[in-house]
C-alpha cells in the first residue's frame, strides 16, 4: 500500500508510514453506522455499560440481570452503548488566499492538501470512512466517500487537481455543507478563515448545532502572523489584485495587535461553539498537527 501511496503528491509514503499509528476520535456520539470503534448515540452491544432499566414486556429475557433480581427481587436489564464507525467530512478551503506562501516551505493550499490527505488516510486506516468537500464561497466539489484505501485514490488525486481561486465565504459555504452532510459525523474544516470572524463562526456554529463533531484547522502562513517585511513596500493582495503602499515599520505593531485580536476571536468563538480549534502555520509538521488533534 505504501508503494501505491508514494505516487500521490500530498501523501508520500514516508508520511503515510508515520501516520500508521495515529487514531482520531470524536468527543460526541455519532449516529448508527457500521460496527466500529466510536460510541454511538444509540444503545447497542458493546462492552461499555450505559444504564439499568426495569424489564418491560418484549425485552429479551437473556438481558435480565439475575444478580440484581437475587438481591432486590426486581427484573432489571442492563443496557450498553452501541459502537459504530464514523464518517469524516473534510472541508477544504480552495480560495485564492490559500495560495499564499511566504515564510513556509509550502503554500497554505499545499499544506491544507497535505493535511487533508493525512486525515483521510488516518480515517481510512482506523476503519472509518471519509470524504472530501472543497469550497470557496460555495461548495465546489464533493467527492464520493471512501472507506478503503482503494476508494481513497480519487480523493487523493482530486487534491492534486485543486487550483486556488476565488474569494472565500465560510458562512455561506459551511451553511451549504451543513445542509449537505446528513446525520452526525466528524467535520474537519481546513481554511485560513481570512474574513470577518463573526461570519466564520456562524458557519462553524451551524455545523456544531447540527450535531457534528467539528474540528477547525486554521492554517496561516507565518508571514501573515509575524509580518516580517521591512520598510516601504508595495503590497498586492491575492484575492483582489489591488495594491497599496505601506510602511511596514510603522504599521507592524498595529497589524500584530489586530491579528492577535482576530485570532483570539476565532479561537474563543470556535471553543464556545463546541468546535475543536487548532491554529497551525505552514511550517508545522503534518504529523505533529495530527498528533495534537488526536490527543486533544
Amino acid at each position, binding site marked *: 500500500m505504501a508503494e501505491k501511496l508514494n505516487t500521490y503528491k500530498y501523501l508520500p509514503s514516508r508520511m503515510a508510514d508515520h501516520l500508521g499509528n495515529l487514531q482520531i476520535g470524536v468527543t460526541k456520539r455519532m449516529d448508527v453506522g457500521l460496527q466500529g470503534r466510536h460510541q454511538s448515540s444509540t444503545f447497542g452491544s458493546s462492552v461499555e455499560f450505559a444504564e439499568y432499566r426495569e424489564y418491560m414486556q418484549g425485552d429479551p429475557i437473556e438481558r435480565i440481570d439475575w444478580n440484581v433480581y437475587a438481591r432486590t427481587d426486581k427484573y432489571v436489564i442492563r443496557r450498553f452503548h452501541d459502537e459504530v464507525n464514523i464518517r469524516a467530512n473534510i472541508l477544504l478551503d480552495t480560495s485564492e488566499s490559500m495560495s499564499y506562501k511566504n515564510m513556509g516551505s509550502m503554500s497554505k493550499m499545499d499544506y491544507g492538501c497535505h493535511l487533508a490527505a493525512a486525515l483521510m488516510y488516518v480515517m481510512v486506516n482506523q476503519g472509518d470512512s471519509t470524504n472530501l468537500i472543497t469550497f470557496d464561497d460555495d461548495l465546489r466539489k464533493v467527492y464520493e466517500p471512501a472507506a478503503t484505501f482503494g476508494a481513497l485514490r480519487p480523493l487523493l488525486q482530486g487534491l492534486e487537481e485543486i487550483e486556488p481561486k476565488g474569494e472565500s465565504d465560510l458562512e455561506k459555504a459551511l451553511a451549504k455543507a451543513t445542509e449537505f452532510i446528513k446525520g452526525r459525523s466528524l467535520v474537519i474544516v481546513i481554511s485560513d478563515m481570512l474574513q470577518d470572524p463573526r461570519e466564520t463562526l456562524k458557519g462553524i456554529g451551524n455545523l456544531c448545532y447540527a450535531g457534528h463533531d467539528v474540528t477547525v484547522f486554521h492554517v496561516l502562513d507565518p508571514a501573515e502572523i*509575524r509580518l516580517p517585511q521591512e520598510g516601504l513596500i508595495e503590497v498586492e493582495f491575492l484575492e*483582489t489584485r489591488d495594491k497599496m503602499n505601506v510602511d511596514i515599520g510603522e*504599521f507592524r505593531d498595529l497589524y500584530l495587535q489586530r491579528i492577535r485580536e482576530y485570532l483570539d476571536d476565532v479561537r474563543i468563538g470556535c471553543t464556545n461553539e463546541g468546535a475543536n480549534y487548532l491554529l497551525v*502555520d505552514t511550517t508545522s509538521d503534518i504529523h505533529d*498537527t495530527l498528533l495534537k488533534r488526536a490527543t486533544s
Partner: protein
Amino acid sequence: MIPGASIFLYLLPLAAAPVLFHLLMRRQRKTVLFSTRMFFDSMQPRLSFHRKFREPLLLAARTLLLLFLLLALARLAIPKMGSVLGLGGEQAVVIVIDNSSSMVGSVEGSDRTKLSVAQEGARTLLKNMDPRGKAAIVLLVPEPGADRFGGMTTDRDSLLSFLQAIQPTEATGDSAKALLRATTLLENANSGGGGALHVFTDLQEAEWKTPVLAAEDMPGSPQIFVHRVPTAESTLPNICMLRASVSSRRILPNQPYALEVLLRNDGDKDFQVRVHRKDSENSVAEVTNVEVGAGSQKLVKLPLQPKAPGRHWVRVWIEGDGFEGDNRIFVPYICEKKGDIYFVGDRAAGTFGLLPLALSPSGDGRYTSLVPNFLPLDTIKSRLQQKTPMLVVLTWADASSLDEGTSAVLDQYTQRGGNMLVLPAVDARESTGQAPAWLGAKLAPLKAVPVSVPLRVANESSSFWSDIRGLDGRVRIGTAFVKQYFAISLGQDAGYAALLGANEDPALLAIRKHGKGQIVVSGIAFGRTGAWSTLPRQKIFLVMAQPIALGAVANLSNESVSIVAGQAPRLLPGEGDEMSITTLLGDQVDWSGLKNESPILVRGGAYIATMGQRETCLTVLPSELEGLSAFVEGSEIGALEGIPHGVGTLTNEDDFQDELEQSLAGTGFYVPFLLLAMAFLMAEGLLGAPAKKWKDRGKGDPDNKRGLPSTNTGEEII
C-alpha cells in the same frame, strides 16, 4: 588648506551618490503579495506625512553627510585676516579713540565706562600688532597734549602709556576731522603693506549720523573698522546744564548778585535734581533741589555776594540724573575794588536828592562798595584824568555849561567804559541850554501835571531791568507817580532806549551805550519831597540805582564769555595778538601765545583770558549734545556713508582678544564641517530607523508579552 587635502574637493561629486542610489533603489522597490487586505483596510496604513518625506529627508541627510565629510577632509579655512586688519607685517594702524563726553557713560552689561572699554580694546589691538608695524592714536576730540603723538610710531610703550592717559572730555567730537587726520596719517605712513583704521566709539548720533565725508575726500582707501562700544540704557533722564553766568554788571564786594543757571531736561518726564553751588570764598557747598519739566528748560537763580575784590570762581554741579558728562560748570568772575562816584555839585545843596543815599547808604562804600565824591565842575576834568570813577553824575545845567575840554574828557571817559548819569537838579525849574552833541539828548520844557500820573516801564527787555524783571518777564516798579518832569528829546541816532515814561511822553528815563560805557539821562529829579516823583522814596529806587552806577549795557561791565568744550577762545575781544589763559578752576590750561593759536579747551573750567590790559572771564561749558541718548544702530554709519567700513561690537577686551586671535590665525572649517557631518549622520540614523522599531528593541524580548495564541506545535506564533 593642508596640502593634498584639496583632492577631496575633486571628490565632491561623490556627495551625489545617495541620489543615484536612491533612484536605483526606487526602481527596485519590491512588490509583496499578501493574502488578504482585511487588516489593511481596517487600519488604513497610508503613508504618514512624515513617512512621505522620510525618503527625501534621508536622501538629503545622506547627501549632506557626504558633502560635509568631504569638505571637512578638504580642510577648508578662511585665510588669516591679520593683513586686512592691518595687524600683519609692516602695516600701519591708526586708532581713533572717541574721548567725547558721552564716553563717560556705562557700557552695556557692565559698570565700566565706555571710554575704559575703548582704551582696553585699543590696547589689545596694539598688543596684537606685528612689532614692525607703525601705529598712531587719534582722538575724536583733539587735546593739546596729544600733539606729541601726532605721527606714526613703532614705539608701543609710548603709545600704550598715552592710551592709558586719555581722559574723557566734555566736548562733542568732529568725526570728519578725526577721520581725515587718521587717514592722512595712514597715507603719510607710506607703510607699503597698507593699513587699517580702527575706530573705538559709542557711535553717538550727534557725532556719527550726519554724512560728513565723501569717499573721494579720504586720502587713500584704508580699511575702516568701527568697534562699537554699546551704551547701557539709563532709566533716569538727563538734565543738561546749558549755561551758568553771573551778573553782566561790574561786580563789587558786598553787592548781591544772582548766578543764573539754565537747565534742560532731555527726558520725557519731570525730574528733580540737586543743584550744588560752591564758590571760591565758601568752602561749604549749598544745595538746592530743582525740578525741571519734561523736555523743557528752567532758569535757576542762585545768590552770589562776593566779599573781597579779586578773581573768583563759582562751581555749579547737579546730581541725580542719568548722565554725568554735562553736570558741571565752572564760572569765573572778577570782583572789583570799591568804586568812586563823582557827583558834580555840592552835597549840601541837595542837588541830587536821594540818589547819593541810594547808591551808598553809609557814604563810605561799606554796604555797596560805592563811595560818593562831590566835586566842583571845574575840577572834574583833572580828577577824571587822575582816576577813573565808576559813575559821573551831573545835572543838565552843568552838562549844558561844559567847556570844550571838560566835555571832551567826559566823552572820552564814557567812550572808554565809564558810566554817566545826567539828571535835573532838585531845584531846577527851566530847561537848560544846549547839551553836548555826544550826549544825544536834550530837555523839553518843564511839565507839571495837576494830578500825579503813574510812571510806566518801557523796554522791559532792556538789561537795565534784569535785576527787577520777574520770572514771567514783567518789570514791576510798584506805584510810582510823577508830578513834574522834563520830557527828554532823544536823538534819533543816539541809540537811547527809554526806561520810564508818563502820559504821552515816552522817555523820562533813558539809557544808551556810548562807546564802551553807558549814559543814562533822566527828566526827573530824585528829590526826597515827592515834588518831582514818588519813585526815590520807594525801595525799587535802590535797585534801579545799581545798574546806573555799575553799568547795565556797558561793555566794560564784568566781561565774561562762554564757549562750548571743543572750541578755542580765538574770538575773544582784546587788543593785540598775544593772549594768555590762566586757570582758576577746572581743567588745567595755563597757556600764552598768539591768539590765533590758542588751544582748544575740551573740558569745563573757569579761566581768565588776558589780552593786553584786558581780562575776560572765560567759561567752558559742557557740550549739550553729549547727554543725548541716540546712537547709531546697525552697520550703516551716516558719517561713513559711501565709505567701505565694517562694524563690530566691543563689550570687553577678552572677547576682542579672542576675535583678533582668530583673525590672525585664520579660521579652519575642519571641526565645524565634521560636526555637521556627524549631525547629519545622526539624522540619517534617526530617519533610517523608525522610532517604533527602536522602542521594540528597547523592550528586550517582547515576543512573549504579546499574548498571541500558540500553533499546533505549542509554540507562540511570534
